[in-house]
């Protein structure tokens, strides 16, 4: 399988302080990769770095093209969708407008309509709330909306930052089930950041474990899940 994203010696900076110490990893096309680690390990920063939201050093190749140093909106237009921490809802816009903004860069109108229908097939609840102000949605619904906005970009890579954050377990299960379907049906690759390592390892096929801005462990999800030592020392369960 071919490499979709190759990150090498990635460092990231918030002002003068360095948040990543040379992270390297690769994502294969069509896969689900989990990025695990404790608070402050650099998971969110890694996602932000890929999207050009922080200053970086090192190399990020998406489909063989260097994307570091580019503006966020240009990276997005190449096919990288980012479902941000906190969901990034346009709270004063309606659900429908949220989805239409996400399709703003696309000119293929009929395909946009198809994707809209696809999104509603995954998340029927959004269709029911189409004209509702998005800020009034529940947390779970806003997460569904955030994933849907990302899908409307028709991305080849989707970055998900803590999609389970603050949600009831049942909703989380539902969302993770749908994410698997999305991966299987649309062939979009997922890079998933999660605190909830057990959940993420169930979904993912590859995993990387970060600690203080470095990759300390990598391998296929099943073997990391079954390695009690890794679980105890890095994943805390």
């Amino acid at each position, binding site marked *: 399988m071919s490499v979709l994203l190759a990150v090498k010696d990635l460092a990231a900076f918030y002002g003068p302080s360095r948040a990543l110490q040379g992270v390297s990893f690769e994502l294969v096309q069509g896969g689900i990769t989990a990025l695990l680690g404790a608070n402050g390990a650099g998971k969110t920063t890694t996602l932000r770095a890929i*999207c050009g*939201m922080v200053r970086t050093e090192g190399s990020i190749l998406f489909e063989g093209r260097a994307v570091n140093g580019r*503006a*966020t*909106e240009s990276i*997005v*237009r190449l096919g990288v*969708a*980012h479902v*941000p921490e906190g969901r*990034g*809802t*346009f*709270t*004063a*816009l309606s659900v429908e*407008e949220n989805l*239409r*903004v*996400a399709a*703003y*860069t696309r000119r293929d109108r009929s395909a946009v309509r198809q994707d809209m229908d696809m999104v509603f097939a995954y998340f029927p609840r959004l269709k029911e709330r189409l004209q509702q*102000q998005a*800020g*009034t*949605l*529940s*947390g779970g619904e806003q997460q569904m909306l955030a994933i849907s*906005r990302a899908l409307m*970009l028709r991305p080849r890579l989707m970055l998900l930052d803590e999609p389970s954050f603050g949600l009831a377990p049942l909703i989380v299960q539902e969302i993770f089930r749908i994410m698997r379907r999305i991966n299987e049906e649309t062939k979009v690759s997922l890079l998933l950041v999660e605190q909830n390592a057990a959940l993420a390892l169930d979904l993912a096929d590859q995993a990387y474990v970060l600690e203080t801005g470095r990759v300390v462990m990598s391998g296929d999800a099943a073997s990391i899940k079954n390695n009690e030592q890794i679980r105890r020392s890095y994943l805390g369960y």
Partner: protein
Amino acid sequence: MDELLQQVASGLANGAIYALVALALVMIFVSTDHINFAQGEMAMFSTYLCWQLIQWGFSFWIALIVAAALSFLIGMTIERTILRPLRHASVLSIVVVFIGLLAIFHSMAGAIWSHTIKEFPSPFPKVSFAGSGYIGPHQIGMIAVTLILLSALFAFFRFTPLGLAMRAAAQNPISARLAGVRVDWMLALGWGLAAAIGAVAGVMVAPAVYLEPNMMAGILLYGFAGALVGGISSPGGAVAGGFIVGVLENLVAFIGNQIERHAGVYIIGNGEKLTVALIIVITVLTLKPSGLFGRITVRRV
């Protein structure tokens, strides 16, 4: 009674202009959280541009459209070249920049076109009609142009993808970038639109107040009052606020005149109209900072 109707009608006409200025202010405020103090002087400069074009032989409406288009470019250029590099600057530095812009436009207009008062032609025919005792043709034209412009803007923001992208960028720039929207350009576009709206306001009010470098100083205050009354974060509210302030100032002057006529004491009159606007500003800021129609975004946490 006639006098009252007349005052309300001319209040609505003035209110139309305040509404446009208020809208221009809000347009920049919602996307940058800044009040552009130079908005009035920019509108004045645009009005001079229009006047110049008319002097060169263009018809009124062509001159207005060209002047608005030039103002749009000037607004975009200011955002791109002056405010863009200052995007992380403190509020105080930005305020100083706005005051600097105000002074620059003021003295540039004076230097190019001199400080003498010029007459500005009205595009509307001087005809008399039923009710022309209450409201003149130019005042009706002012209201009509305002309403047309407002409807066009409403349609633009409500129904076009670009308008939606601008609203999204104003509301949540990070999410807008993640949707591929070029937020920087949306801000510049907002500046351009604000400048063009100001141009229309200036050109519409010029036949009534005459053309000179100070023409917009008071009007900016009224527009600011309108924006605050309606809610500085709500475009629709700002428009309503503009009309409310226009009518209110005339009513206050009207009541003052009545009191003087019947009781013989002068309390308030035409001379205090600007004071009324300032009192409105202060009252709103103290009692209801979000304005009458200011939206408090619903958010579930």
